């Protein structure tokens, strides 16, 4: 296994390199072949690795390939670690990545820069796998930064259009702000443990007791979470994700739903033993997650762009994952990541199908009646919607429920926020479905030309739908007869190095509480979902009426609570002003004027002064010589 494990991330890298250098000269078919083969190869190898992990001692395999940095006591190896957590995540990344590569073949058919797209996509898979499989924090960070880069490249795919270019930059900058936290966290961990390699860090952490108050572990974990906030679009660094919808829809599906944005959650799961030792950090994670979940869900209620609805939905669902992690339900949070990857990717790809079918129409208010025209898309999206709202029996149901259950244990307020968010989620999802697929078509011309998408697009949709339905099985809770298998599966990774008893969360609650909460959540979800469908199945009329009745409130919610505007006014404008000042005042006047031009002018003035000696008249020169002679004679003959 060791000899081929490194190919898992490297195969897509090779694909990207090949396509980057030669892609422009290749035929489209060749490009497709290279890209798909690379990802498929990765997937196959990831499957083999998964199999290997099943049989490995302690369910953990670590392969070190070469020393990256060696200086004094610092040793950072290039290595890959395979344990239940990373192997599962790798399968998700490679699997959904492969499906989206396939989908993109159809979606990006008519776009220029076809090879560039697949080059970046392959590159992204490489970085994401590096992030997931890295055995030490710097390697993980390479992947971390790399996915940010690829996000920028792919969002700004149509780099010659202003929205895409601006959005790409915004995404990258917000990511970078988070990266500062990530770096601080990494360094703090080095200070605490003397190494960057994850295995030894967690092993040494196992010897420690949980911190009371604010110690170095709390600091490190909080900083890491700050980094996660940037990557996973939580408050306050979520602002880039909705703008990122300017990129192609498959990109939104892969990067901004299933994989890159989940890197934050993955990071916290990876370092779960550390978070268990820092209760303050955990609580912060939970509250930020809950706030984000609710806040984003509210914004999603009145968005007109189909992708924006899904974007805010993603932010909200990520909030749920953090809520789960923060309630010490690491397995639950990861489980939600797992299920969410399936149905959110499915939702985005379905939306892409709709957009493409209507010839790049993204405004929900202009859609309608597609139920008959695009059946496959419709039914797969129904499956996904049922998942996300938490319809009983679907994957999303189990994962969301587990999170709410644990949240309640931590604080009823967290639970309330989560419940309210779930209500909004169901409402806006069925609003989306109703506006798109029910009612009379509001743009007859586009509707005329609408057709179901080609097989390269519908096949992934169906695969994802099946996955979404089945993904719930690993997390079947005990009260339903399962044994929340996923927790047991992930335990070796999540509790790595734990030697002190009592750290692991005891079996919480009781069956009655579990059933009760489940019932409440289900009722709320079903109710608000039905309300949403009913309100909108004939078109956006009710919303427009509401907007007329309460324009201020409507504008606030539809306007994303003006956060972007506030950031612009409070942070960006002053920074720009300072920059302007430094430019015009400092740079131009002081540095250019005083530092550069002034010595030049001075020299020129000196020259102009000196040149007066050159009169051209022999008499004057003779006088000068005579004067010099006097001077010398005076010196020598004193």
């Amino acid at each position, binding site marked *: 296994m060791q000899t081929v494990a490194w190919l898992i991330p490297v195969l897509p890298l090779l694909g990207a390199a090949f396509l980057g250098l030669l892609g422009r000269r290749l035929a489209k078919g060749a490009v497709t072949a290279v890209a798909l083969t690379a990802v498929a190869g990765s997937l196959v190898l990831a499957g083999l690795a998964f199999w290997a992990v099943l049989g490995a001692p302690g369910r953990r395999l670590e392969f070190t390939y070469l020393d990256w940095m060696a200086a004094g006591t610092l040793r950072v190896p290039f290595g890959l670690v395979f344990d239940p957590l990373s192997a599962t995540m790798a399968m998700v990344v490679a699997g959904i990545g492969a499906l989206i590569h396939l989908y993109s073949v159809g979606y990006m058919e008519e776009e220029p820069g076809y090879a560039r797209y697949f080059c970046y996509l392959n590159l992204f898979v490489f970085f994401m796998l590096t992030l997931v499989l890295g055995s030490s924090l710097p390697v993980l960070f390479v992947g971390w930064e790399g996915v940010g880069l690829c996000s920028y490249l792919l969002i700004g795919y149509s780099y010659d259009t202003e929205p895409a270019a601006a959005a790409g930059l915004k995404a990258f900058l917000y990511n970078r702000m988070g990266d500062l936290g990530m770096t601080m966290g990494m360094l703090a961990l080095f200070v605490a443990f003397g190494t960057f390699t994850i295995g030894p860090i967690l092993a040494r952490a196992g010897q420690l007791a949980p911190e009371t108050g604010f110690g170095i572990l709390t600091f490190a974990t909080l900083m890491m979470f700050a980094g996660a906030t940037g990557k996973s679009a939580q408050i306050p660094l979520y602002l880039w994700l909705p703008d990122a919808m300017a990129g192609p829809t498959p990109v939104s599906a892969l990067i901004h739903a299933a994989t890159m944005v989940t890197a934050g959650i993955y990071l916290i799961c990876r370092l779960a033993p550390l978070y268990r030792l820092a209760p303050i950090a955990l609580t912060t994670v939970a509250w930020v997650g809950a706030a984000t979940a609710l806040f984003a869900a509210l914004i999603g209620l009145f968005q007109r762009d189909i992708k924006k609805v899904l974007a805010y939905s993603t932010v909200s669902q990520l909030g749920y994952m953090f809520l789960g992690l923060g309630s010490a339900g690491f397995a639950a949070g990861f489980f939600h990541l797992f299920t969410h990857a399936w149905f959110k990717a499915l939702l985005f790809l379905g939306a892409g199908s709709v957009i493409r079918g209507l010839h790049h129409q993204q405004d929900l208010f202009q859609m309608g009646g597609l139920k008959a025209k695009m059946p496959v898309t419709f039914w797969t999206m129904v499956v996904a919607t049922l998942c996300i709202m938490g319809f009983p029996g679907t994957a999303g149901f189990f994962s969301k429920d587990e999170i709410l259950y644990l949240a309640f244990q931590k604080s009823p307020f967290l639970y309330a926020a989560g419940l309210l968010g779930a209500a909004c989620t169901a409402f806006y999802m069925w609003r989306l479905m109703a506006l798109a697929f029910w009612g009379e078509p509001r743009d007859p011309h586009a509707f005329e030309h609408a057709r179901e998408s080609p097989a390269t697009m519908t096949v992934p949709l169906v695969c994802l739908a099946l996955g979404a339905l089945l993904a719930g099985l690993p997390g079947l809770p005990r009260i339903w007869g399962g044994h929340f298998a996923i927790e047991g599966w992930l335990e070796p990774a999540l509790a790595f190095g734990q030697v002190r008893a009592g750290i692991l969360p005891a079996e919480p609650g009781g069956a009655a509480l579990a059933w009760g909460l489940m019932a409440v959540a289900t009722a709320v979800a079903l109710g608000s979902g039905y309300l949403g469908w009913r309100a909108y199945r004939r078109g956006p009329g009710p919303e427009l009426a509401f907007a007329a009745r309460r324009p201020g409130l409507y504008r606030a919610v539809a306007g994303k609570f003006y956060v972007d505007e506030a950031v612009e006014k409070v942070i960006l404008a002053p920074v720009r002003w300072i920059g302007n000042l430094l430019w015009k005042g400092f740079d131009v006047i002081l540095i250019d004027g005083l530092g550069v031009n002034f010595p030049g002018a001075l020299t020129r003035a000196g020259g102009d002064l000196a040149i007066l000696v*050159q009169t051209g*008249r*022999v*008499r004057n020169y003779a006088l000068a010589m005579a004067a010099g002679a006097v001077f010398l004679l005076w010196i020598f003959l004193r």
Partner: protein
Amino acid sequence: MTTAGSILQGGLPGYILVAMLLLLIGLATVLCRRSVLVQFMGVELMLNAANVALVAFARFRGGDVQGTVFYLFIIAVAACEAAVGLALVVGLYRHRQSTDTDRADALKQ
């Protein structure tokens, strides 16, 4: 005897003093007059000053013949210089209709 007495009586310091004063007057001529021909005359005065000093030293160091030989060469050089220099003056005059050196300042910056 004192230096002043020696001067008045035609001793070496006297001749040297004459030579030096002649030199200075020649220099003043070059510096203060604008006509190139007058400046040339000043140059000749300076040369003669050197000649006086040279011959005086020759006499006061035992009649050394080398002094006179050198004097001869100085004359030869002065003659050459006069010839070529005056030719240049003629050329200058042809170009500018003037022998005023202050007007010949085309090389000024």
